[in-house]
């Protein structure tokens, strides 16, 4: 539950998810042996951490990543870490270490485990895990490892070990400067003033080109200045504080300290120079508030009681106004404005979530300046991230809730379809319809072949011609039964003529009709083949298709219950988190209000004292 100034830099060490500033062609290429593992990486690389984690868990459930078992465990742990779920992350990393994995993966698991323990405040375990890394880590992780290890050692007050780790390490300038600063501060905390001062002095006098290092240089000089002040070495304090930039974030505190260094040197007039500069700055800053007391104090010391009284009066008015403003801020926070101002509205549309999200810009609200120290604090940042995550997770579950309704409808529709179609399909498959058609087709072919073989010329005629042919044959039979009947002689001649004409017509069309019949038979074959193939597909589909929706309905019902319960838990946790963050902010504001009240008491006391002395008869 702590953060470090190098955290943003360190983010890039985890899973290469912040590699946007790096040219893709220079990025290390991941060789994917399972498509689904590649899909998880893709989701992770585009910043969809939660989706990546969901897919990873689901693909593991289906055993779709057999070639990346250890790596996927490592990746899962890393993503849990990104989502601020340290306990689960540690469990995953430990599971990797329990298996027989290559040294590279083992080292990375120790690294992440060390990171988890450090984040949770288990410094001894962090040191233990990080010390087990055997050999070099990927280059982007190495600086972070050194930072984690040295910081954990510092928290354990093993300063010599921390110094050794940092001394042996050759990193880039920024990392080294941060490391020296941290170590210097830690040395001061343990009263190893000379060693701490040496480290901070080196950082305070380093050459810095970018804003980040210039700011760090200011912080080192400020820390060093105040350390010397506490040790009653005002001249050294002065030279360190003078190195702080006048337009930097530490300028107010440096000006205040400079004045105090002058006071320690008994030069009250000199002290007025930085304090009067500070006096005209924004009263929201604690150092400026202090200057409102320090200036009249110096005037009083110089015997300028009128000016001192005037400045004390002015301070009292300013403090009253400031107190009223703090009260207004407290009231606004109680009405729930804090998180809305910090996160915007709605929270769930924010593009990034997770442990590494940082509040980068303070909202433009009056309370922002009062609350700057707690906004920068780790507990507040963690709480804020949790609150954002809860909002996002809640919106995710809301979408699932809507989907569940659709899926329930789908299950109902499928149930109805099964009830309607299954009996129809079974009846069709039981009817042997295609076999019957094939038998009919066989009979047709037999008839056709018989007609061709027997030269049954009428068989290929039209229905009318076949009827005419039958009638001629009938009449011919009747004539044949009475061959000597003279009355039939004329009819016999006519019949011969009609038969000849019909035969002519039939012969003329026969070839074309036989060809047409053959073609029809072939077309019938093709249609039957298609029917047969469809029949087989229906048979196959019927064999593998479910006849019920299985346990989907039950699964959906169970999941809906879990959804409802979890959405309630999320809402309650978000409320609790919001309340806790508001309480932290209000406590801070009340502490500031109390400090101003204390200043007010001091100002009134000093003013009364001046008036008292002014009222005394001169001796």
């Amino acid at each position, binding site marked *: 539950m702590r953060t470090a100034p190098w955290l943003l830099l360190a983010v890039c060490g985890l899973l290469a998810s912040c590699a946007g500033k790096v040219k893709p062609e220079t990025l290390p290429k991941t060789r994917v042996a399972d498509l689904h593992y590649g899909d998880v990486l893709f989701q992770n690389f585009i910043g969809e951490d939660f989706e990546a984690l969901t897919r990873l868990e689901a693909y593991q459930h289906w055993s779709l990543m057999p070639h990346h078992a250890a790596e996927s465990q490592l990746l899962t742990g890393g993503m849990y870490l990104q*989502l601020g779920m340290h306990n689960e992350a540690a469990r995953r990393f430990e599971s990797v270490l329990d298996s027989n994995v290559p040294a590279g993966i083992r080292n990375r698991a120790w690294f992440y485990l060390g990171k988890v323990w450090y984040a949770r405040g288990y410094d001894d375990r962090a040191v233990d895990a990080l010390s087990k890394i055997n050999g070099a880590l990927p280059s982007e992780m190495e600086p972070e490892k050194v930072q984690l290890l040295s910081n954990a050692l510092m928290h354990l007050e093993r300063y010599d070990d921390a110094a050794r780790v940092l001394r042996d390490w050759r990193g880039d300038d920024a990392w080294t400067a941060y490391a020296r600063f941290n170590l210097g501060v830690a040395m001061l905390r343990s009263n190893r003033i000379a060693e701490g001062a040496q480290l901070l002095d080196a950082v305070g006098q380093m050459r810095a080109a970018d804003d980040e290092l210039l700011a760090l240089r200011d912080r080192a000089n400020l820390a060093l200045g105040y350390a010397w002040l506490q040790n009653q070495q005002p001249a050294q304090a002065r030279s360190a504080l003078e190195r702080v930039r006048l337009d930097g974030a530490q300028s107010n505190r440096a000006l205040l300290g400079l004045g105090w260094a002058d006071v320690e040197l008994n030069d009250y007039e000199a002290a007025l120079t930085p304090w009067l500069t500070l006096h005209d700055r924004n009263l929201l800053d604690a150092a400026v508030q202090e200057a409102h007391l320090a200036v009249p104090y110096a005037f009083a010391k110089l015997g300028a009681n009128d000016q001192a009284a005037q400045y004390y009066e002015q301070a009292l008015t300013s403090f009253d106004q400031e107190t009223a403003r703090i009260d207004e801020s407290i009231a606004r926070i109680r009405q729930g404005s804090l998180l809305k101002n910090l996160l915007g509205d709605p929270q769930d549309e924010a593009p990034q979530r997770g442990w590494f999200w940082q509040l980068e810009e303070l909202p433009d609200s009056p309370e922002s300046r009062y609350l700057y120290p707690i906004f920068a604090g780790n507990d507040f940042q963690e709480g804020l991230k949790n609150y954002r995550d809860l909002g996002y997770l809640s919106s995710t579950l809301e979408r699932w809730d809507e989907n569940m309704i659709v899926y329930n409808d789908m299950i109902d529709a499928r149930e109805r379809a099964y009830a309607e179609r299954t009996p129809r399909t079974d009846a069709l498959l039981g009817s042997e319809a295609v076999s019957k058609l094939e038998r009919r087709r066989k009979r047709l072919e037999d008839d056709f072949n018989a007609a061709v073989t027997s030269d049954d010329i009428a068989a290929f005629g039209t229905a009318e011609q076949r009827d005419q042919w039958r009638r001629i044959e009938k009449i011919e039979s009747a004539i044949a039964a009475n061959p000597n009947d003279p009355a039939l002689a004329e009819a016999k001649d006519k019949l011969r003529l009609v038969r000849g004409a019909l035969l002519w017509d039939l012969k003329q069309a026969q070839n074309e009709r036989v060809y047409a019949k053959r073609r029809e038979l072939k077309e019938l074959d093709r249609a039957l083949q298609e029917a047969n193939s469809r029949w087989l597909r229906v048979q196959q589909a019927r064999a593998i298709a479910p006849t019920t929706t299985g346990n989907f309905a039950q699964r959906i019902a169970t999941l809906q219950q879990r959804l409802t319960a979890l959405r309630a838990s999320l809402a309650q946790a978000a409320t609790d988190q919001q309340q806790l963050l508001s309480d932290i902010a209000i406590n801070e504001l009340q502490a500031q209000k109390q400090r101003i009240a204390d200043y007010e008491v001091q100002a009134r006391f000093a003013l009364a004292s001046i008036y008292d002395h002014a009222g005394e008869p001169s001796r």
Partner: protein
Amino acid sequence: MKSSMRAFCLGVALHVLGLAAASGVAAEADTRALDEQIQSIKQDVVALNRDLFVLEEELLFPANTQVAVFLSMDVGEFFALDTVELRLDDKQVSKYLYTPREAEALLKGGVQRLYLGNLRTGEHELVALFTGKGPNGQDYSRGAQLKFEKAVSAKYLELRISDQQRKAQPEFQIKDWE
């Protein structure tokens, strides 16, 4: 007065040195307890989300009809991806426009699951049309085609964009993962 001023100096110094506690011990304990509780809820949400995802895919894309098309890129020196259009059995099923972030994710080794759908068993044809910038930054479009057999198990196909160094040209292939 001087001593109280010095006390304030110390307060400022503590802030400077990063040692000042913004909240008290009690607040820290509350924060930790709530953080533990939230971690546990988050874990439940991850588990539930996984179960919902599994249910959704099993319900909408059962293994016996499932077909998934993935896209991977190797190197990318000769081709900068802009869009991919997928046609299954001559029917457009997907058209995807890539953001720089997505293209970068592909170059880093990510593999995108571009399409997930259902197909009946039997023979099918996949056609993929790629557009983007080719060698020398020229507009470039190419296609790849694959006939494949869909059996009763899930079918995975991979569209691969790689560099053909010898010809200094990009190469587009479709791989059938048996």
